[in-house]
């Protein structure tokens, strides 16, 4: 199986490729349109700032390439947020694959720290990336912006309020958490994606 990881100016790309290697997959890290189009699976990872990253994607025409992909695509963390319509981070117009907003966490009490960082549980998990055994399991998050619950929500997490831990629409899948850093549970989720 050919797995491509989209190469752009984001950190943490190598963590994803290491995680795939642990599953026996040697992924290609690339921004080459041809390689991205012909891969069986594409992963869109990301740690960074929304507006800066969108500018970079547009400049390298990766925005249209990602939207046109027909094989299963997995957006991770910032990757998921950039697949939405708009982000409050830098007031960024994003890819619009998921017709929903990305909002900043607003603490409601002193204990509400932002970023939401650490292990939290996923609930109401949907078929696709998840199976019923993954209900209430812990995964690893690091983020200051969130996607509200919407029609595409494929898993829910509660921090300050419920938000989308995962999204799904057609061939596009996304997680706000980092499956590549979520131990055995993360491996199951990556494995499920590779088996789509």
């Amino acid at each position: 199986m050919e797995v491509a990881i989209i190469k752009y100016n984001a950190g943490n790309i190598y963590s994803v490729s290491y995680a795939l290697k642990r599953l026996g997959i040697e992924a290609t890290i690339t921004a080459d349109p041809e390689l991205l189009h012909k891969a069986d699976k594409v992963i869109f990872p990301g740690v960074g700032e929304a507006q800066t990253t969108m500018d970079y994607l547009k400049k390298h025409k990766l925005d249209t390439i990602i939207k046109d992909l027909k094989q299963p695509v997995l957006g991770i963390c910032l990757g998921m947020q950039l697949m939405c319509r708009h982000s409050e981070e830098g007031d960024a117009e994003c890819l619009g694959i998921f017709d929903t907003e990305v909002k900043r966490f607003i603490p409601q009490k002193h204990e509400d720290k932002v970023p939401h960082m650490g292990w939290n549980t996923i609930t109401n998990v949907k078929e696709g990336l998840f199976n019923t055994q993954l209900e209430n399991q812990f995964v690893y998050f690091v983020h200051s912006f969130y996607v509200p619950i919407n029609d595409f929500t494929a898993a829910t997490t509660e921090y300050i309020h419920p938000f989308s831990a995962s999204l799904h629409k057609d061939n596009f899948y996304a997680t706000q958490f980092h499956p590549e850093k979520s131990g055995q549970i993360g491996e199951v989720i990556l494995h499920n994606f590779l088996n789509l």
Partner: protein
Amino acid sequence: MLAKRIVPCLDIKDGKTVKGVNFVNFRDAGDPVELGAQYSREGADELVYLDITASHEGRKTFTELVRKVAANISIPFTVGGGINELKDVDRLLSAGADKVSINSAALRNPKLIEEIAKNFGSQVCVVAIDANFEDNNWICYLNGGRIPTDKHLFQWASEAESLGAGEILFTSMTHDGVKTGYANEALATLADNLHIPVIASGGAGNMEHFRDAFIAGKADAALAASVFHFGEIGIRDLKQYLLKEGVNVRI
């Protein structure tokens, strides 16, 4: 609900785990990757690798180790020791570390916190503070607790937060190695003052100490070394205990 984190810390010298007298249950206690993987399997939420080598050669060995840890371990890990400038941070993050911990370099040059936050994001920047309780004040120390400064813990922690620190790792020198519990009062004050997570360090001797750090000390994470290395506390047992005591942990 967001879980409280248990964080084993491994001291590394020349690419090897500094051994204690009794590393039980570990096939090769000297291998930091093997040890980290073992902790991860037992349920550790994060790992800290602290490079205590001073030489230039040792630094290269450590970077190589960071790469191996990233390739083999599927939970987040922080690296610290000998980070003085932005290019050290870049080198360690590029090797696969999730966060870096800075201590003396931040005290000497607080702007480093700002630079790390701006270039890599606050979430990678852990500011470690070694402080000792003396004459009714928590005094911050440099160079692994050898040189006192004129900074006070609470003032410095707030300054670090405003400069862009993502977490504060507070080691009480007063409690470190004594095994009578964490500095819960100071931890609670930090939690009340700050809007970023606080990692408790120094003083863990039994399971109750972890519970107290989380409940009385309001800590977000608790770090320990010897109680895990010497097998005095198993991480799996610790988490079962904490859950029973009403602390939300990942099982």
